[in-house]
Protein backbone atom coordinates (compact mmCIF):
# COMPACT_ATOMS: atom_id res chain seq x y z
CA UNK A 1 0.00 0.00 0.00
CA UNK A 2 1.35 3.41 -1.01
CA UNK A 3 2.63 5.96 1.48
CA UNK A 4 1.23 9.50 1.36
CA UNK A 5 2.67 12.64 2.91
CA UNK A 6 0.15 14.76 4.81
CA UNK A 7 0.10 18.58 4.96
CA UNK A 8 -2.05 20.39 7.52
CA UNK A 9 -3.10 24.04 7.55
CA UNK A 10 -3.97 25.09 11.10
CA UNK A 11 -5.56 28.45 10.32
CA UNK A 12 -5.83 31.08 7.60
CA UNK A 13 -2.47 32.67 8.52
CA UNK A 14 -0.40 29.49 8.70
CA UNK A 15 1.09 27.72 5.68
CA UNK A 16 0.36 24.07 4.90
CA UNK A 17 2.88 22.11 6.96
CA UNK A 18 4.06 18.54 6.57
CA UNK A 19 2.99 16.59 9.64
CA UNK A 20 3.80 12.97 8.73
CA UNK A 21 2.60 10.18 6.50
CA UNK A 22 -0.20 7.63 6.19
CA UNK A 23 -0.74 4.47 4.14
CA UNK A 24 -3.72 4.43 1.77
CA UNK A 25 -4.97 3.01 -1.50
CA UNK A 26 -6.09 6.29 -3.11
CA UNK A 27 -6.33 10.06 -2.42
CA UNK A 28 -9.74 9.97 -0.71
CA UNK A 29 -8.65 7.14 1.55
CA UNK A 30 -5.44 9.03 2.30
CA UNK A 31 -7.41 12.15 3.31
CA UNK A 32 -9.59 10.11 5.66
CA UNK A 33 -6.58 8.48 7.27
CA UNK A 34 -4.85 11.85 7.53
CA UNK A 35 -7.87 13.33 9.26
CA UNK A 36 -8.04 10.47 11.72
CA UNK A 37 -4.36 10.36 12.52
CA UNK A 38 -3.42 14.06 12.47
CA UNK A 39 -6.60 16.00 13.29
CA UNK A 40 -7.89 13.96 16.22
CA UNK A 41 -8.60 16.98 18.38
CA UNK A 42 -9.17 19.36 15.54
CA UNK A 43 -6.98 22.35 14.93
CA UNK A 44 -7.05 22.65 11.16
CA UNK A 45 -8.88 24.25 8.29
CA UNK A 46 -7.64 22.07 5.45
CA UNK A 47 -5.51 19.03 4.56
CA UNK A 48 -3.46 18.08 1.52
CA UNK A 49 -2.13 14.61 0.69
CA UNK A 50 0.46 13.66 -1.91
CA UNK A 51 1.88 10.22 -2.76
CA UNK A 52 5.40 10.03 -1.34
CA UNK A 53 6.59 8.65 -4.69
CA UNK A 54 5.64 11.94 -6.43
CA UNK A 55 7.90 14.04 -4.19
CA UNK A 56 11.31 15.23 -5.38
CA UNK A 57 13.29 15.65 -2.19
CA UNK A 58 16.79 16.90 -1.31
CA UNK A 59 18.49 17.75 1.96
CA UNK A 60 21.16 20.49 2.22
CA UNK A 61 23.82 17.75 2.60
CA UNK A 62 22.63 15.95 -0.50
CA UNK A 63 22.67 19.19 -2.49
CA UNK A 64 26.23 19.86 -1.34
CA UNK A 65 27.46 16.38 -2.26
CA UNK A 66 25.57 16.13 -5.52
CA UNK A 67 24.64 19.44 -7.17
CA UNK A 68 21.38 19.56 -9.12
CA UNK A 69 21.56 18.92 -12.84
CA UNK A 70 18.42 20.53 -14.22
CA UNK A 71 17.42 19.45 -17.72
CA UNK A 72 14.47 20.33 -19.91
CA UNK A 73 13.08 16.77 -20.07
CA UNK A 74 9.38 16.45 -19.34
CA UNK A 75 6.35 18.65 -19.75
CA UNK A 76 6.16 22.05 -18.11
CA UNK A 77 3.89 21.94 -15.06
CA UNK A 78 3.22 23.62 -11.70
CA UNK A 79 5.23 22.44 -8.70
CA UNK A 80 4.50 23.31 -5.09
CA UNK A 81 7.59 24.11 -3.06
CA UNK A 82 8.14 23.06 0.58
CA UNK A 83 11.12 23.94 2.73
CA UNK A 84 12.44 23.00 6.13
CA UNK A 85 14.20 26.12 7.39
CA UNK A 86 14.72 25.40 11.08
CA UNK A 87 15.92 22.58 13.27
CA UNK A 88 13.66 23.69 16.08
CA UNK A 89 11.77 20.71 17.44
CA UNK A 90 8.19 20.90 16.33
CA UNK A 91 5.25 18.79 15.26
CA UNK A 92 5.81 20.02 11.71
CA UNK A 93 8.94 19.95 9.65
CA UNK A 94 8.25 21.29 6.15
CA UNK A 95 6.38 24.47 5.24
CA UNK A 96 4.66 25.22 1.97
CA UNK A 97 6.34 28.42 0.75
CA UNK A 98 5.14 28.90 -2.82
CA UNK A 99 5.18 27.39 -6.27
CA UNK A 100 7.16 27.30 -9.46
CA UNK A 101 6.78 25.96 -12.96
CA UNK A 102 9.25 23.49 -14.50
CA UNK A 103 9.52 20.46 -16.78
CA UNK A 104 10.62 18.07 -13.98
CA UNK A 105 11.28 17.87 -10.27
CA UNK A 106 15.01 18.49 -10.39
CA UNK A 107 14.57 21.67 -12.47
CA UNK A 108 11.72 22.76 -10.23
CA UNK A 109 13.94 22.47 -7.17
CA UNK A 110 16.84 24.36 -8.83
CA UNK A 111 14.42 27.20 -9.63
CA UNK A 112 12.85 27.12 -6.18
CA UNK A 113 16.21 27.50 -4.44
CA UNK A 114 16.87 30.66 -6.49
CA UNK A 115 13.36 31.95 -6.11
CA UNK A 116 12.99 31.45 -2.34
CA UNK A 117 16.35 32.70 -1.08
CA UNK A 118 15.09 34.56 2.01
CA UNK A 119 16.21 31.68 4.24
CA UNK A 120 18.57 28.75 3.66
CA UNK A 121 16.80 25.42 3.33
CA UNK A 122 17.84 22.47 5.47
CA UNK A 123 15.70 20.29 3.21
CA UNK A 124 13.44 20.82 0.21
CA UNK A 125 10.48 19.07 -1.39
CA UNK A 126 8.90 19.90 -4.73
CA UNK A 127 5.64 18.20 -5.67
CA UNK A 128 3.71 18.44 -8.95
CA UNK A 129 0.49 20.36 -8.18
CA UNK A 130 -1.52 17.65 -9.91
CA UNK A 131 -0.26 15.02 -7.43
CA UNK A 132 -1.77 16.89 -4.48
CA UNK A 133 -5.34 16.29 -3.33
CA UNK A 134 -7.02 18.74 -0.96
CA UNK A 135 -9.84 18.11 1.50
CA UNK A 136 -13.08 19.53 0.11
CA UNK A 137 -14.21 22.90 1.36
CA UNK A 138 -17.82 21.81 1.71
CA UNK A 139 -16.91 19.19 4.30
CA UNK A 140 -14.51 21.39 6.29
CA UNK A 141 -17.09 22.04 9.00
CA UNK A 142 -17.78 18.33 9.48
CA UNK A 143 -14.10 17.40 9.38
CA UNK A 144 -12.49 20.17 11.36
CA UNK A 145 -15.14 21.80 13.55
CA UNK A 146 -13.55 22.83 16.85
CA UNK A 147 -13.75 20.14 19.50
CA UNK A 148 -13.65 22.71 22.28
CA UNK A 149 -17.41 22.65 22.86
CA UNK A 150 -17.54 18.86 22.67
CA UNK A 151 -16.38 18.07 26.15
CA UNK A 152 -16.64 14.34 25.55
CA UNK A 153 -13.65 14.62 23.22
CA UNK A 154 -11.45 16.03 25.98
CA UNK A 155 -9.45 13.75 28.22
CA UNK A 156 -10.36 15.87 31.26
CA UNK A 157 -14.04 14.89 30.78
CA UNK A 158 -13.24 11.40 31.99
CA UNK A 159 -13.26 11.42 35.75
CA UNK A 160 -10.81 8.62 36.20
CA UNK A 161 -7.98 10.65 34.65
CA UNK A 162 -8.22 13.28 37.39
CA UNK A 163 -8.61 10.54 40.02
CA UNK A 164 -5.44 8.99 38.62
CA UNK A 165 -3.62 12.32 39.00
CA UNK A 166 -4.89 12.72 42.55
CA UNK A 167 -3.70 9.20 43.26
CA UNK A 168 -0.25 9.98 41.84
CA UNK A 169 0.00 13.20 43.85
CA UNK A 170 -0.91 11.23 46.96
CA UNK A 171 1.83 8.73 46.16
CA UNK A 172 4.44 11.49 45.80
CA UNK A 173 3.40 13.10 49.08
CA UNK A 174 3.62 9.84 51.01
CA UNK A 175 7.13 9.24 49.59
CA UNK A 176 8.34 12.56 50.96
Amino acid at each position, binding site marked *: MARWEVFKKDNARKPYQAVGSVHAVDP*EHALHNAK*NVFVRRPAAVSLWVAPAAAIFSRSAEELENQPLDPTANGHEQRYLVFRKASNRRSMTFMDHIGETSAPNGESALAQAIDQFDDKPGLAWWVIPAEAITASEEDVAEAWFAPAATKTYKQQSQYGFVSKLREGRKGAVTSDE
Partner: protein
Amino acid sequence: MNNALKNALLNRLIGMADDELILSHRNAEWTGHAPLLEEDIALANLAQDELGHATVLLGLVEELNGKTPDQMAYFRDAAEFRNVQFLELPKGDWAFTMLRQYLFDAYETILYNRLLTSSYQPLADVVAKFRGEEIYHLRHSHMWVERLGLGTDESLGRLQAALDQMWPLTAQLFQVSEADNLLSEEGVFPLAADMADEWQEIVLPHLANCSLHVPTHATMLLAGRETHTHFLNDLLTDMQQVARWDPSAEW
Protein backbone atom coordinates in the same frame (compact mmCIF):
# COMPACT_ATOMS: atom_id res chain seq x y z
CA MET B 1 -44.70 17.82 29.56
CA ASN B 2 -47.34 15.23 30.48
CA ASN B 3 -46.39 11.75 31.61
CA ALA B 4 -47.35 9.93 28.43
CA LEU B 5 -45.22 12.27 26.33
CA LYS B 6 -42.35 12.12 28.80
CA ASN B 7 -42.31 8.31 28.78
CA ALA B 8 -42.47 8.19 25.00
CA LEU B 9 -39.53 10.61 24.78
CA LEU B 10 -37.55 8.67 27.39
CA ASN B 11 -38.05 5.51 25.38
CA ARG B 12 -36.69 7.17 22.23
CA LEU B 13 -33.76 8.85 24.01
CA ILE B 14 -32.77 5.54 25.59
CA GLY B 15 -33.04 3.90 22.15
CA MET B 16 -30.71 6.49 20.62
CA ALA B 17 -28.24 6.31 23.50
CA ASP B 18 -28.21 2.49 23.49
CA ASP B 19 -27.65 2.37 19.71
CA GLU B 20 -24.59 4.59 20.17
CA LEU B 21 -23.32 2.81 23.27
CA ILE B 22 -23.58 -0.70 21.88
CA LEU B 23 -22.12 0.18 18.48
CA SER B 24 -19.34 2.08 20.23
CA HIS B 25 -18.47 -1.02 22.23
CA ARG B 26 -18.37 -3.20 19.11
CA ASN B 27 -16.19 -0.68 17.26
CA ALA B 28 -13.86 -0.36 20.24
CA GLU B 29 -13.26 -4.11 19.99
CA TRP B 30 -11.19 -3.36 16.87
CA THR B 31 -8.66 -1.34 18.87
CA GLY B 32 -5.36 -3.09 18.31
CA HIS B 33 -6.87 -5.45 15.70
CA ALA B 34 -7.80 -3.30 12.68
CA PRO B 35 -6.21 -4.26 9.34
CA LEU B 36 -4.19 -1.02 9.18
CA LEU B 37 -2.71 1.19 11.88
CA GLU B 38 -4.54 4.17 10.36
CA GLU B 39 -7.88 2.37 10.48
CA ASP B 40 -7.19 1.25 14.02
CA ILE B 41 -7.03 4.92 14.97
CA ALA B 42 -10.07 5.71 12.83
CA LEU B 43 -12.19 3.09 14.57
CA ALA B 44 -11.02 4.22 17.99
CA ASN B 45 -12.01 7.80 17.05
CA LEU B 46 -15.37 6.58 15.82
CA ALA B 47 -15.98 4.56 18.96
CA GLN B 48 -15.04 7.55 21.11
CA ASP B 49 -17.43 9.85 19.22
CA GLU B 50 -20.25 7.33 19.64
CA LEU B 51 -19.49 6.83 23.31
CA GLY B 52 -19.49 10.61 23.74
CA HIS B 53 -22.86 10.89 22.03
CA ALA B 54 -24.25 8.10 24.22
CA THR B 55 -23.01 9.88 27.36
CA VAL B 56 -24.61 13.17 26.31
CA LEU B 57 -27.91 11.46 25.42
CA LEU B 58 -27.90 9.61 28.73
CA GLY B 59 -27.48 13.03 30.34
CA LEU B 60 -30.81 14.00 28.77
CA VAL B 61 -32.27 10.74 30.07
CA GLU B 62 -31.08 11.60 33.57
CA GLU B 63 -32.94 14.93 33.45
CA LEU B 64 -36.14 12.98 32.84
CA ASN B 65 -35.78 9.85 35.00
CA GLY B 66 -33.08 10.75 37.52
CA LYS B 67 -30.82 7.80 36.64
CA THR B 68 -27.17 8.64 36.02
CA PRO B 69 -25.46 7.66 32.77
CA ASP B 70 -23.36 5.11 34.71
CA GLN B 71 -26.47 3.52 36.23
CA MET B 72 -28.02 3.27 32.79
CA ALA B 73 -24.91 1.88 31.09
CA TYR B 74 -23.63 -0.50 33.76
CA PHE B 75 -26.58 -1.58 35.84
CA ARG B 76 -29.29 -2.47 33.37
CA ASP B 77 -29.66 -6.03 32.08
CA ALA B 78 -30.07 -6.93 28.41
CA ALA B 79 -33.89 -6.93 28.54
CA GLU B 80 -33.84 -3.26 29.54
CA PHE B 81 -31.68 -2.14 26.61
CA ARG B 82 -33.41 -0.49 23.62
CA ASN B 83 -30.78 -0.71 20.88
CA VAL B 84 -31.61 -2.38 17.57
CA GLN B 85 -30.35 -5.93 17.18
CA PHE B 86 -27.96 -5.52 14.23
CA LEU B 87 -25.75 -3.24 16.32
CA GLU B 88 -25.24 -5.85 19.04
CA LEU B 89 -24.01 -8.60 16.67
CA PRO B 90 -20.32 -9.49 17.05
CA LYS B 91 -17.98 -7.22 15.08
CA GLY B 92 -17.37 -9.92 12.45
CA ASP B 93 -14.86 -9.11 9.71
CA TRP B 94 -13.90 -5.70 8.37
CA ALA B 95 -16.60 -5.86 5.68
CA PHE B 96 -19.30 -6.56 8.27
CA THR B 97 -18.11 -3.74 10.52
CA MET B 98 -17.92 -1.19 7.71
CA LEU B 99 -21.27 -2.15 6.18
CA ARG B 100 -23.01 -2.02 9.57
CA GLN B 101 -21.46 1.38 10.15
CA TYR B 102 -22.60 2.60 6.75
CA LEU B 103 -26.22 1.44 7.15
CA PHE B 104 -26.41 2.93 10.61
CA ASP B 105 -24.61 6.21 9.74
CA ALA B 106 -27.06 6.81 6.89
CA TYR B 107 -29.95 6.32 9.33
CA GLU B 108 -28.44 8.61 11.97
CA THR B 109 -27.69 11.34 9.46
CA ILE B 110 -31.38 11.45 8.53
CA LEU B 111 -32.49 11.25 12.15
CA TYR B 112 -30.16 14.06 13.24
CA ASN B 113 -31.28 16.30 10.38
CA ARG B 114 -34.85 15.95 11.51
CA LEU B 115 -34.08 16.35 15.20
CA LEU B 116 -32.39 19.72 14.56
CA THR B 117 -35.90 21.18 14.58
CA SER B 118 -37.25 19.09 17.48
CA SER B 119 -39.59 21.04 19.75
CA TYR B 120 -37.67 19.49 22.67
CA GLN B 121 -34.86 22.06 22.68
CA PRO B 122 -32.28 20.10 24.76
CA LEU B 123 -32.37 17.35 22.12
CA ALA B 124 -32.15 19.79 19.19
CA ASP B 125 -29.13 21.40 20.88
CA VAL B 126 -27.10 18.22 21.40
CA VAL B 127 -27.87 16.91 17.93
CA ALA B 128 -26.48 20.13 16.44
CA LYS B 129 -23.16 19.24 18.11
CA PHE B 130 -23.19 15.61 16.89
CA ARG B 131 -24.14 16.33 13.32
CA GLY B 132 -20.74 17.28 11.89
CA GLU B 133 -19.19 14.11 13.28
CA GLU B 134 -21.98 12.03 11.84
CA ILE B 135 -21.49 13.52 8.36
CA TYR B 136 -17.83 12.57 8.67
CA HIS B 137 -18.64 9.02 9.88
CA LEU B 138 -20.95 8.54 6.90
CA ARG B 139 -18.26 9.69 4.44
CA HIS B 140 -15.82 7.21 5.98
CA SER B 141 -18.11 4.17 5.91
CA HIS B 142 -19.49 5.16 2.46
CA MET B 143 -15.91 5.17 1.16
CA TRP B 144 -15.12 1.76 2.64
CA VAL B 145 -18.25 0.06 1.27
CA GLU B 146 -17.26 1.34 -2.18
CA ARG B 147 -13.69 0.07 -1.91
CA LEU B 148 -14.70 -3.35 -0.59
CA GLY B 149 -17.55 -3.72 -3.09
CA LEU B 150 -15.41 -2.76 -6.07
CA GLY B 151 -12.26 -4.39 -4.68
CA THR B 152 -11.58 -8.10 -5.11
CA ASP B 153 -13.90 -11.10 -5.41
CA GLU B 154 -13.13 -11.87 -1.80
CA SER B 155 -13.92 -8.40 -0.46
CA LEU B 156 -17.16 -8.29 -2.46
CA GLY B 157 -18.11 -11.79 -1.26
CA ARG B 158 -17.58 -10.83 2.36
CA LEU B 159 -19.53 -7.61 1.94
CA GLN B 160 -22.45 -9.40 0.25
CA ALA B 161 -22.53 -12.01 3.04
CA ALA B 162 -22.67 -9.18 5.59
CA LEU B 163 -25.52 -7.52 3.69
CA ASP B 164 -27.47 -10.79 3.47
CA GLN B 165 -27.17 -11.20 7.22
CA MET B 166 -27.91 -7.62 8.21
CA TRP B 167 -30.47 -6.40 5.72
CA PRO B 168 -33.53 -8.08 7.30
CA LEU B 169 -32.53 -6.62 10.68
CA THR B 170 -32.43 -3.02 9.45
CA ALA B 171 -36.25 -2.95 9.38
CA GLN B 172 -36.10 -2.59 13.15
CA LEU B 173 -34.77 0.96 12.76
CA PHE B 174 -38.12 2.02 11.35
CA GLN B 175 -40.46 0.31 13.82
CA VAL B 176 -42.95 2.57 15.57
CA SER B 177 -45.09 2.22 18.67
CA GLU B 178 -48.37 3.90 19.62
CA ALA B 179 -46.52 6.37 21.80
CA ASP B 180 -44.35 7.46 18.88
CA ASN B 181 -47.36 9.04 17.20
CA LEU B 182 -47.70 11.33 20.18
CA LEU B 183 -44.05 12.42 19.89
CA SER B 184 -44.45 13.08 16.21
CA GLU B 185 -47.65 15.10 16.66
CA GLU B 186 -45.89 17.28 19.21
CA GLY B 187 -42.88 17.77 16.95
CA VAL B 188 -40.60 16.16 19.54
CA PHE B 189 -39.35 13.16 17.61
CA PRO B 190 -39.90 12.18 13.95
CA LEU B 191 -41.88 9.06 13.18
CA ALA B 192 -39.28 6.38 12.43
CA ALA B 193 -41.42 4.86 9.69
CA ASP B 194 -41.34 8.21 7.84
CA MET B 195 -37.56 7.99 7.55
CA ALA B 196 -37.49 4.61 5.79
CA ASP B 197 -37.96 6.00 2.27
CA GLU B 198 -35.27 8.63 2.67
CA TRP B 199 -32.90 6.00 4.06
CA GLN B 200 -33.51 3.70 1.12
CA GLU B 201 -32.97 6.58 -1.30
CA ILE B 202 -29.50 7.02 0.20
CA VAL B 203 -28.35 3.43 0.67
CA LEU B 204 -29.94 1.54 -2.25
CA PRO B 205 -28.14 3.42 -5.08
CA HIS B 206 -24.81 3.21 -3.26
CA LEU B 207 -25.15 -0.51 -2.53
CA ALA B 208 -26.01 -1.11 -6.21
CA ASN B 209 -23.03 1.00 -7.35
CA CYS B 210 -20.84 -1.18 -5.14
CA SER B 211 -21.99 -4.38 -6.93
CA LEU B 212 -24.17 -5.49 -4.01
CA HIS B 213 -27.56 -7.16 -4.26
CA VAL B 214 -30.14 -6.36 -1.63
CA PRO B 215 -31.92 -9.58 -0.58
CA THR B 216 -35.39 -9.50 -2.11
CA HIS B 217 -37.10 -12.41 -0.34
CA ALA B 218 -35.76 -11.87 3.13
CA THR B 219 -38.09 -11.97 6.13
CA MET B 220 -37.72 -8.55 7.69
CA LEU B 221 -37.32 -8.31 11.47
CA LEU B 222 -40.42 -6.62 12.87
CA ALA B 223 -39.69 -7.14 16.56
CA GLY B 224 -39.51 -4.13 18.85
CA ARG B 225 -36.40 -2.69 20.42
CA GLU B 226 -36.99 -4.62 23.67
CA THR B 227 -36.04 -7.92 21.97
CA HIS B 228 -32.40 -8.97 21.73
CA THR B 229 -30.07 -11.74 20.66
CA HIS B 230 -27.87 -13.60 23.15
CA PHE B 231 -24.96 -11.55 21.79
CA LEU B 232 -26.14 -8.57 23.83
CA ASN B 233 -25.75 -10.61 27.03
CA ASP B 234 -22.21 -11.49 26.08
CA LEU B 235 -21.40 -7.88 25.28
CA LEU B 236 -22.87 -6.58 28.54
CA THR B 237 -21.04 -9.19 30.60
CA ASP B 238 -17.83 -7.83 29.16
CA MET B 239 -18.79 -4.14 29.31
CA GLN B 240 -20.35 -4.12 32.78
CA GLN B 241 -18.22 -6.52 34.78
CA VAL B 242 -15.71 -4.04 36.18
CA ALA B 243 -18.41 -1.57 37.27
CA ARG B 244 -20.39 -4.38 38.91
CA TRP B 245 -17.47 -5.78 40.86
CA ASP B 246 -17.65 -2.75 43.12
CA PRO B 247 -20.70 -0.56 42.50
CA SER B 248 -19.57 1.92 45.15
CA ALA B 249 -16.15 2.52 43.56
CA GLU B 250 -15.44 6.06 42.35
CA TRP B 251 -14.35 6.44 38.70
